[in-house]
């Protein structure tokens, strides 16, 4: 087995800047307010992933999951520690980001493919298959600004999944799109998993993680607090579950409705 991703004591700081502009900064200083503050989005995280492993990355919102993915795909760089990856990385960190609204779906397809590291020849050979998968049909030459959000997401996912990558990152990409399309995506991800691609799957969907992943990592406010078996990881996530909550289930669901 070869190592696919090696993360060693990685820390990522973010600076929260409260005051912007000369005037605001001067006023803040005079009043003795804080101008900026650091916080650690990722705090001393280490783990190793073997090629072909499928990892479920879980945690509450704001626990650093997306930051970790951005560090792995090289968009961000750690402030301390090292990250090493082997082979080509593809995936979607934000659905359809980088699409240019004025360009047609076709042009965006080529641009996005190139960004994900495909050569012109590669994109051309996979073109039909991508268009097929995205189900955008005769909207191909329409500017993407006219696309529905579902079409946008479909095209983005279709391009990413067709990159012949060694590591595939998926960050809640599948949240958009309707159920049949989601199903298609998950099936496709199972296929690339079967083919030996390393998968990093960020999801809150326990059932889906159970079916897709071999191992679960749980992040809690930047700390990697769990690394291991899928079932245990899912159980770990529900650490402070108590009878109280189950009794009040009705209200929680209502709360949730307001949240979404």
């Amino acid at each position, binding site marked *: 087995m*070869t190592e696919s991703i090696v993360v060693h004591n990685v820390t990522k700081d*973010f*600076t929260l800047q409260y005051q912007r502009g000369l005037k605001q900064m001067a006023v803040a200083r005079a009043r003795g307010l804080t101008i900026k503050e650091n916080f650690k989005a990722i705090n001393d995280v280490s783990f190793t992933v073997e*090629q*072909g492993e499928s990892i479920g990355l879980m945690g*509450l*919102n704001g626990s650093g999951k997306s930051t970790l993915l*951005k560090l792995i795909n*090289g*968009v*961000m760089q750690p402030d301390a520690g090292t*990250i*090493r990856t*082997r*082979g080509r*990385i593809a995936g979607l*960190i*934000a659905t359809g*980001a*980088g699409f*240019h609204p*004025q*360009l047609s779906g076709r*042009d965006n397809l*080529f*641009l996005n493919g*190139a*960004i994900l*590291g495909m*050569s012109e020849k590669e994109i051309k050979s996979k073109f039909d298959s991508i268009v097929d998968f995205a189900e955008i049909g005769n909207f191909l030459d329409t500017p993407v600004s006219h696309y529905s959000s579902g079409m946008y997401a479909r095209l983005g996912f279709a391009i990413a999944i067709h990159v012949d990558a*060694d590591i595939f990152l998926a960050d809640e990409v*599948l949240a958009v799109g309707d*159920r049949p399309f*989601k*199903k298609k995506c*998950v*099936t496709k991800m*199972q*296929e690339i*998993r*079967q*083919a*030996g691609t390393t998968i990093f799957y960020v999801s*809150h*969907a*326990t*059932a*889906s993680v*159970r*079916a*897709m992943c071999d191992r679960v990592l749980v992040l809690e406010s930047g700390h990697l607090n769990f690394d291991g078996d899928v079932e245990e990881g899912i159980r770990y*996530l*529900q650490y*402070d579950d108590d009878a109280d*909550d189950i009794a009040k289930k009705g209200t*929680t*669901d209502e*709360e*949730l409705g307001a949240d*979404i």
Partner: protein
Amino acid sequence: MSKAADRARPDDVDERGRRRNAAKRARALMEKKANAMPVVEAPDGPRQVRVVEAELVDPAPHGGIAEVFQQRYLLKLIVQRQLAQMYAASVLGLLWSYIQPAMRFGVYFFVFGVVLKSHGGNTPNFALHLFAGMVFVHYFSETWSSGTRSVRQNRALLLKMRMPREIFPVASMVTAMYHTGPQILILLVICLIVGWGVSFTSIAAGLLGLAILLTFAMAMALFFSALNVYYKDFQNIVATFTQFLHFMVPMMYPYSTIARLQDNHPWIYQLYMANPLAESVLLMQRFFWYPTVTDTTKAPLSDHFPPDLWERGLIMLAITSLMLFGAQKFFSRLEPKFPERL
């Protein structure tokens, strides 16, 4: 915990309550998503082993400008994207890049050539003298100002996947070439009509001028694009400076006007000549304009070019190359913070 203790430490309770609520919400969300997300079981059969030939490497880009030229296909697409963006919803499209310089040329020619007669009567083919300068000043200011904005403008791409971020200023430079190329062609055609010839000296001047121009423009675009990520003010500062550039090079007036400053204000002369763009324009005129001058008694070489043109040119190239090197270093230093600044 008893109620009394609860009241005694309200902060603690608040914290715990919030934590519990957050957990509760997340759990409910998870349940909902668990149902929303279709489950597909892994297909049967043994998992394949994928052999990856590559080495373990740092995923972040470190190649600098050199890496940009390894990814020419991506560069080409980004240039196309920039062009498309510029001319979206415009009828005349690319023509705008020629109309504007043409009109500016007309105005300058009228004001400086006809009204003010700043050429002092000893500059034959003054229109060419002016145009040869304007083309390259235009190229420089476009590279500089659009290069400065480039990284910020392409934030969506930059945040999506890793790529050498220098690709955006470089793309601005290539886009500017698209706009300048036809102008150079027009310049050449006019030169040929008027009567033009090349010699080794003039070709050497042209190449040296071009080298200074390219390295200087790239250095400035790279440096300011990084600064502009931190403070957007820089794109306005650059826009202001580019307004003056036309007046800071010897094209609306001959070099002799500037040379005369040497007597009373030697340091102003030195300052003026320290501008790599002025040196580059002089060398370009040596290539395009000077060979079209037939009556060299009316326009002696010493009136239009400094005596130390070549020494200055070579030193300037060394300086601009150093600037490019420094700009790349600066860019690489600020680059890791780009994603969170955008």
